[in-house]
């Protein structure tokens, strides 16, 4: 009988990513109804030091897949490792972060195990014997409760949707599982990471510039983002103009962000844009057109020229932070 929960983690620069703690914490909470154990899976090369991080969030047991082939976090190697860890833990539920890597793993794992998958979920609970997950559909215009009937139930969790809470696990017993990656077919030619840039989907604050920026000089929004320790986003119009890279795009066909604070500057508030930022906690709109639709979808609005207002805001925040 499969039982308990396997929380699949992800790491960057020899530390578990925030999403990993969110996944373990979600597992901890779910285990209150489904029963345990809560096992955390850590995969990579030279990962034993990360086991204690997983234990701090309440994993009862930790499975390590330590293999040179997992060093680069390539999807096909990770899928093989995760499939073997699932076989070893035999869980009723597999939780994983819905990151770009996690989505690949979840989708292939579901097909490999003929198991139900709910992708990009913002809530999950046990309802009797079945798992019920809540997931946005239609670009966030709808929230759906879906039931997963089959085993293991695979639930991929949207970054920042669940809280990471430090908790005490039983003992955090650590076990290494020897994995074989013989089936790997992808080879890495090059990896390019944008250094020093906060990932939009992980940022606490996002400051977005739209067509109202009028050109590729985003200095004023960059300065505000920096003062707030946040990331810079862009509307699709700003991306289409070539002012910003596609990876900065927020919206239904861009990234879905859920920061504590979202500041939209020179963005009109098209439905496709709103779809990508509607679950932000607090939304501020700055637009010179008092009729701009964004004003009806924000918490605070300022009517005026962003080139006056944004620097004034930055100055005020810098003053505050000393």
């Amino acid at each position, binding site marked *: 009988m499969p039982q308990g929960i396997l929380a699949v983690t992800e790491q960057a620069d020899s530390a578990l990513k925030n999403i990993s703690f969110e996944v373990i914490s979600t597992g901890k909470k779910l285990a209150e109804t489904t029963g345990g154990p809560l096992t955390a899976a850590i995969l990579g090369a030279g990962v034993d030091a990360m086991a204690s991080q997983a234990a701090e969030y309440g994993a009862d047991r930790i499975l390590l897949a330590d293999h040179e082939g997992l060093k680069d976090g390539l999807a096909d190697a990770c899928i093989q490792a995760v499939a073997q860890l699932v076989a070893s833990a035999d869980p009723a539920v597999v939780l994983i972060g819905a990151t770009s890597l996690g*989505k690949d793993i979840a989708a292939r794992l579901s*097909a490999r195990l003929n198991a139900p998958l709910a992708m990009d979920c913002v809530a999950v609970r046990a309802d009797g014997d079945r798992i*019920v997950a809540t997931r946005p559909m239609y670009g966030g*215009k*709808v929230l759906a409760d879906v039931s997963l009937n089959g085993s293991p139930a695979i639930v991929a969790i949207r970054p920042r949707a669940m809280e990471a809470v430090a908790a005490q696990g039983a003992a955090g017993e650590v076990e290494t599982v020897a994995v074989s990656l013989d089936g790997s*077919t992808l080879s*890495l030619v090059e990896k390019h990471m944008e250094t020093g840039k906060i990932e939009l989907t992980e940022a606490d604050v996002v400051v977005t510039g739209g067509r109202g920026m009028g050109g590729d000089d985003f200095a004023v929004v960059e300065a505000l983002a920096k003062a707030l320790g946040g990331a810079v986003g862009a509307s699709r119009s700003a991306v289409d103009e070539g002012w910003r890279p596609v990876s900065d795009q927020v919206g239904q066909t861009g990234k879905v962000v859920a920061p504590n604070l979202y500041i939209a500057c020179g963005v009109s508030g098209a439905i496709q844009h709103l779809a990508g930022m509607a679950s932000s906690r607090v939304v501020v709109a700055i637009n010179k057109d008092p009729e701009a639709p964004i004003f009806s979808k924000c918490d605070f609005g300022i009517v005026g020229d962003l080139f006056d207002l944004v620097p004034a805001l930055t100055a005020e925040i810098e003053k505050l932070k000393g």
Partner: protein
Amino acid sequence: MEIAVLLKQVPATESMIEISDDGSAIKTEGINWVMNPYDEMAVEEALQIRADTGGTVTVFSLGPEKVAEALRTALAMGADTAVRIDPKGKPLDGLAVAKVLAGELKKGAFDLIVGGHRAVDDDNFQVGPAVAELMSIPHISMVIKQDVADGRIRCTRTIDGGTLVLETTLPALITTQRGLNEPRYASLPGIMKAKKKPIDTRPLSETGTDPGAPMVQILAMRLPPQRKGGRIIEGDRAGDKAVALVKALREEAKVI
């Protein structure tokens, strides 16, 4: 190169979505249906590869009769053949769709399969990699650049915080990401020609694939909480407004 493209018809992204009275689906009246934007990129990329290497482009869609419109758009853009698998009303979850598509794709000898990285209706991010898994071939998701040569494909894909350049052997499956290309519009002669092309329609029951009962079922749909109109911060000068906003963000909203 024999190329297959997977495409889905979805509500246009500007659609206002309403929920049906029983709460388990969306209301379909008045919705403008279009080809999933990521699948338009898939068609475009397939056509560009065909232009370089020769071969054919076959587009596949699993869906009701209406999806023939999206298939015709693909034909008008330049695809050679279109296949529609008709579920005849059978409910299918993402994995079931992948099983049916993989079953049909296995009947061909495709070197490359191109899909979208997600369909903007169910946002499952699932069908592409699942099809690859069921066909035991490699996949590369969220591709923004590709090169095919000598039985291999080299792709640049986006990951969180950067990009990877990956290489694998054909046959393979890739999924598209914004930035890969700008899909062409169908030309008028293309549209005329596409009207006459037949669509190879296959009832699900005759495909030989039994996807089984869906393992994922929608229990209930609801609209997320909507923001009401925001409070407009007043003030004489930019500086005054900035002070008032920062105060509100700090003392009321407590976000800074």
